[in-house]
């Protein structure tokens, strides 16, 4: 009897050992992709923010402007949870979904059975949670106190001042682990917490003792550099930089690219379940082609993908044709004054074979102009705006390469609005630049709310009426009417004045008029600083905590709460939808002002470049994918509305409104003159009277033009 019991026990042990071995084998071999079906996020169709997966494979997806929604792994929508629109990070722990409520700045727990939400912690004072992870009996939160307060370090390291909190879900106790320089965390299936950090001038993988709270370095991973998210299972380190997902076998140091080009923003967007990497990201070179995907956002083409490519699908055929990459031709150095994350260089590479090498551009236009005039050959293409000092200098000195020889660019110019085509033309008649994107600030409003508050649309037409309107808008409660970036609003009004009444090219400038005097007084004597409606407390400012009240960025796109707002077209198009919105031009100074000012970005070729032909080909390639080269912006350059059909919802009335505004836009051209901020400061602190301030502005303008 005892012998049989022993044999039975041995059998069980062998079986158990066999199971664990097979798990390891799964991980050791190719990443196995289960046959999940395509799931379309449809209720509401907007951008996926983050997600978590329960052990049985259900997806809990948080959508921008929407609710936490649970889908079965076959795409069946199971349930929407109420009161979850303020969540920004989620994780599964012990049968509940734990989330970070961005408004209350607390960790809460959602009971998936009845949808009840329970507060777990007190206020964490974190603007952003990069990752919530469940390891052992604790939940770990990688928090960023202030997103905009970051430092750039060596080797590509970006220090957001992350704090790793350990939260006891039972007691709500929050402990700062005092671990620093953490970039990403991951709670593995072995119950341990791992983190990737930059310390002692090197990137490395560490483990964090969930019991003793002590860290130990596991692997030096300095070759990888800065990443956004990772998974560590069975000695496989699967990570995402901003271009691809790579699986690194740490035991033999072999690497495999799982997916590219894809942008995964942070740890909330990548996880692991039973041998599968589940991630959600932005495909940067598949604008319209869609693989079989795990989660698909039909509006934004952002999805989590763990499935195989289905070759029979028509769209996948398109994708296969699309990905026939051109032969590699070389590389072009592009100087950009912002992060390269916003540029889809892979799409240009795919269609032209030209790789992009990014060079960070000095934000000081004069320094860049000096660089060009000094004959810097290291940059092939500069990106700037035609209204900038740099562009003015380039045009006046003739330091650009003429694009006249390119029929492709000439045709592109013919498709643009007339004023954009004019901006593309230098005084010599040459085409000097290629426009890349266009944006403008306009008034967005919700018709139902306008009616509710008895607002006449005519009140948005002129500045005086608009200011009176803003005075009577509610300051508290659930509705808001506001101006995003009041400083920009004021400067835009100055632009209107300059473009209507001043002519810098002919040196005719007059600020000593009653109109400008009145405008200056209205803007700088208090409306910007003190107006109660220049910023509604409902809306969070990225730079201040207006009057000590918490605000929520997500409400900015909430149709149920916004009455009207002055905001950019690009932000709305990228962060939300046009459905339910209408658009008006920004208020005008008076009836002499006929057009809305617009900002466009453009690219021109450096005359000292050694790769001028390749740079020209690069620009020609951009013209083939004008909507995809630049992320998080809008491209409203073209006369033909049908050109926008694939990218924007042109059936929406709001789109028609936008089109009509930008059709008659104007690009500011001050030739580099700006009103001195010191004059504004001295006026605001009482050292200068209004007349003295205006006189000084006039004096400076005259000196600038005539010295």
């Amino acid at each position, binding site marked *: 009897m005892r012998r049989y019991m022993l044999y039975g026990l041995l059998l069980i042990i062998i079986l158990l050992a066999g199971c664990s071995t097979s798990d390891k084998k799964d991980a050791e071999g190719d990443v196995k992709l289960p046959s999940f079906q395509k799931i379309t996020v449809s209720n509401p169709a907007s951008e996926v923010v983050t997600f978590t997966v329960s052990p049985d494979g259900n997806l809990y997806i948080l959508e921008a402007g929407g609710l936490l929604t649970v889908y079965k792994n076959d795409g069946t929508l199971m349930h929407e949870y109420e009161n979850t629109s303020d969540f920004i990070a989620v994780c599964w722990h012990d049968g509940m979904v734990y989330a970070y409520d961005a408004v209350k700045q607390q960790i809460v727990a959602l009971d998936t059975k009845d949808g009840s939400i329970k507060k777990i912690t007190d206020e964490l004072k974190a603007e952003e949670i990069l990752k919530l992870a469940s390891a052992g009996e604790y939940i770990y939160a990688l928090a960023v106190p202030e997103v905009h307060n970051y430092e750039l370090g060596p080797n590509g390291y970006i220090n957001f001042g992350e704090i790793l909190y350990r939260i006891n879900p039972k007691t709500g106790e929050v402990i700062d682990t005092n671990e620093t320089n953490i970039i990403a965390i991951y709670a593995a299936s072995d119950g341990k917490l791992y983190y990737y950090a930059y310390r002692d001038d090197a990137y490395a993988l560490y483990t964090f003792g969930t019991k003793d709270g002590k860290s130990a370095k596991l692997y030096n991973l300095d070759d990888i550099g800065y990443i956004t998210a990772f998974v560590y299972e069975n000695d496989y380190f699967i990570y995402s930089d901003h271009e691809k997902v790579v699986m690194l076998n740490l035991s033999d140091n072999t690497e495999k690219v799982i997916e590219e080009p894809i942008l995964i923003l942070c740890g909330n967007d990548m996880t692991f379940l039973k041998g599968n990497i589940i991630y959600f990201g932005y495909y940067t070179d598949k604008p319209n082609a869609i693989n079989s995907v795990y989660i698909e956002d039909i509006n934004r083409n952002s999805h989590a993908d763990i499935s195989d490519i289905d070759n029979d699908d028509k769209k996948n055929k398109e994708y296969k044709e699309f990905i026939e990459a051109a032969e590699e031709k070389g590389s072009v150095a592009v100087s950009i004054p912002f992060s390269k994350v916003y540029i889809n260089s892979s799409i240009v590479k795919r269609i032209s074979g030209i790789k992009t090498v990014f060079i960070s551009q000095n934000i000081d236009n*004069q320094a860049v*102009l*000096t660089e060009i*005039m000094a004959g810097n050959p290291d940059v092939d293409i500069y990106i700037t705006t035609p209204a900038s000092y740099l562009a003015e*200098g380039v045009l006046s*000195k*003739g*330091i650009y390469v003429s694009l006249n020889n390119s029929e492709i660019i000439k045709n592109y110019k013919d498709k643009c609005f007339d004023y954009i085509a004019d901006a593309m033309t230098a005084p010599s008649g040459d085409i000097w630049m290629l426009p890349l994107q266009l944006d403008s600030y306009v008034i967005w409003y919700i018709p139902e709310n306008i009616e509710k508050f008895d607002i006449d649309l005519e009140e948005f037409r002129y500045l005086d009426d608009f200011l009176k309107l803003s005075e009577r808008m509610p300051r508290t409660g659930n509705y808001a009417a506001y101006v995003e970036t009041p400083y920009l609003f004021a400067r835009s009004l100055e632009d209107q004045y300059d473009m209507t009444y001043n002519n810098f090219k002919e040196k005719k400038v007059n600020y000593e008029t009653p109109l400008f005097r009145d405008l200056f007084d209205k803007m700088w004597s208090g409306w910007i600083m003190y107006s109660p409606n220049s910023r509604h407390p409902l809306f969070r400012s990225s730079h201040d905590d207006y009057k000590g009240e918490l605000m929520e960025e997500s409400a900015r796109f909430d149709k149920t709460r916004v009455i009207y707002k002055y905001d950019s077209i690009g932000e709305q198009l990228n962060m939300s939808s046009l459905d339910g919105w209408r658009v008006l031009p920004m208020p005008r100074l008076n009836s002499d002002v006929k057009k809305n000012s617009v900002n466009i970005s453009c690219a021109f070729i450096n005359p000292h470049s050694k790769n001028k032909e390749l740079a020209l080909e690069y620009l020609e390639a951009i013209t083939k994918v004008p909507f995809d080269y630049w992320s998080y912006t809008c491209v409203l350059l073209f006369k033909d509305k049908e050109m926008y059909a694939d990218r924007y919802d042109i059936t929406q009335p709001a789109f028609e409104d936008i089109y009509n505004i930008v059709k008659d836009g104007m690009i500011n051209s001050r030739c*580099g003159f700006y009103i*001195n901020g*010191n004059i504004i400061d*001295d006026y605001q602190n*009482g*050292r*200068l009277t209004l007349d*003295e301030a205006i006189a000084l502005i006039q*004096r*400076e303008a005259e*000196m*600038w033009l*005539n*010295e």
Partner: protein
Amino acid sequence: MNNKRFKLKVFALCIPGLAGFIMFFLWPFGKSLWYSFIDDVFHKNFVWFDNYRMVLGNRYFRLALRNTLIFSFVGVGLLLIVSLALSMGLVRLDRRYHFMKSAFFLPMLLPTVSVIFAWRLVFDNDVYFAWMKDGGPLLQTLPIYVLYIWKNSGVNIILLTAALSQLPGEIIEAAELDGVRGLKLFRYVTMPLITPVMFFVGILSFVNSLKIFKESYLFYGTNYPLDAAYNIQYYMNNHFLKFNYHNLACASAIAAIILAIIISLIYKIQNKFTEDVSI
């Protein structure tokens, strides 16, 4: 032969210095002069004296030049008077207090930005701002004059005290025996003897007066200060910022010519004065 070899040796030893002079002064100066005769650095069309005509005809250039010359003459004059008066006092001090000469030199060693920071604490207030607005050119530029004198008096004091302490005692004694004292002694005996040093100090002060742009720019905090403070360096700097190298080159060429004329006049007067004194 030896003479020739000696000259060659001397020339060889001068080469490093000459090379630096050519590379860092002559060549840039020549290039700058060339810029003043072309339309811009890209098209490089020779335009003869058109740029000079344009610059000389520009009222802001004339304003800047006038302000520069006024500041130089008034500032140098005041500086010389202050330095001489302090030197006369320091020379009479006991040896134990000679360290005080060094104290006057300290302002020159201080970083400009720190100095301006302190200057603004003193002058950047509502009362002075009101004076500056309504006052004349002197009040508007008073901080710069004070700063210039405070910063540059140290070097002058050292040179002048050295000259004063080396005056031949017997001449002074002889003059005193003849009943010449006080102001007359200073005017007819001391001044003529220290004239060469005075001229040198004057030229040095003049050159330093042209370097006041840094302090002025930091103090006023703008490319377009009040009219009285707008000097030639502002004009040149603004054109540099706009990459109008032809205007910049013209302005610097004109300024260089005017300064060369002034300095050569000073030397002529100095030589004449020195002759008269020797006679």
